[in-house]
């Protein structure tokens, strides 16, 4: 089986997560060895996934935890589970 670029793109997310079947993964790997475009698409997508996962991208508002636990404290005083 020979796969084309569109076929590779349709599996990029699963490929990044290691969730493609071994045979397909081998085909994609073979394609990537010679296709600069798909390699760049894969690298850029993987880079985006790693960047957005960093805790610095989304930070909780200042004092968030304190306000939450103070409100919880008041509730815990009022009622049992």
């Amino acid at each position, binding site marked *: 089986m020979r796969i084309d670029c569109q076929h590779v*793109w*349709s599996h*990029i*997310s*699963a*490929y*990044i*997560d*290691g*969730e493609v079947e071994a045979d397909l993964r081998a085909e994609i*790997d073979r394609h*990537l060895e010679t296709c*600069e*475009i798909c*390699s*760049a*698409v894969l*690298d*850029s*997508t*993987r*880079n*985006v*996934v*790693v*960047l*957005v*996962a*960093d805790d*610095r*991208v*989304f930070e*909780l*508002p200042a004092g*968030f*935890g304190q*306000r*939450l*636990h103070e*409100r*919880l404290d008041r*509730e*815990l005083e009022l*009622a*049992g*589970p």
Partner: protein
Amino acid sequence: MVEPPVERSGGSKARGVASEAETIRRILAGERRLFHDLIRPCERPIYLLLLSLLKNEAEAEDVTQETAIKAYLNLRNFRGDSQFRTWVLSIARNEGLGRLRKLATRREDSLEADTDQQTGDYTPAILTSWREVPLEALERKELGAILRKAIAGLPEIYRNVVLLRDIEEMDIKETAAALDITEGAVKVRLHRARALLQRALAPQLGAFAPKRKGWFGGRA
């Protein structure tokens, strides 16, 4: 070059289901204050899910608090057939939808408007090379802002999946349970979301890659 799958440091399985069950047992037996420890690891995913839904920090924080209280008051109903975090995220989602209805300010990209059947262009940005943007580049505030803007620009059904799966590093099964969708839908939405993010971000991220000699536009 073939690289291994992206490693996920979150490791939801490592959160200790057994100790979680024991903590819940003790809370129900009267050690109420232990609920603080139980809810603490869930605060961030709850808030981010609600921020995705409500698009307002103050509302998201308020509903996060209400979700935590509701989880506490209903703790006896938690059957333990999922992680506590999954259960509490389901509560958060319902509370968030309830708040949206109350506010009657459904966004243009409302849940009803987006379905997995809809067609769209999920072709990635076509590149011939890629210079990796290292995590250190996040020290620059504008990079975080660009990433947040791209995520905020996703249709809601894709944004929720990215937040839970890629940002909070939950597995497919837990993401599906928290959002009350199938695992297949999680995979489809995640694939589309990543393609949309790559297309939106690839043209902008080059400026954050380490400088390479003879390459225009790059900078440290």
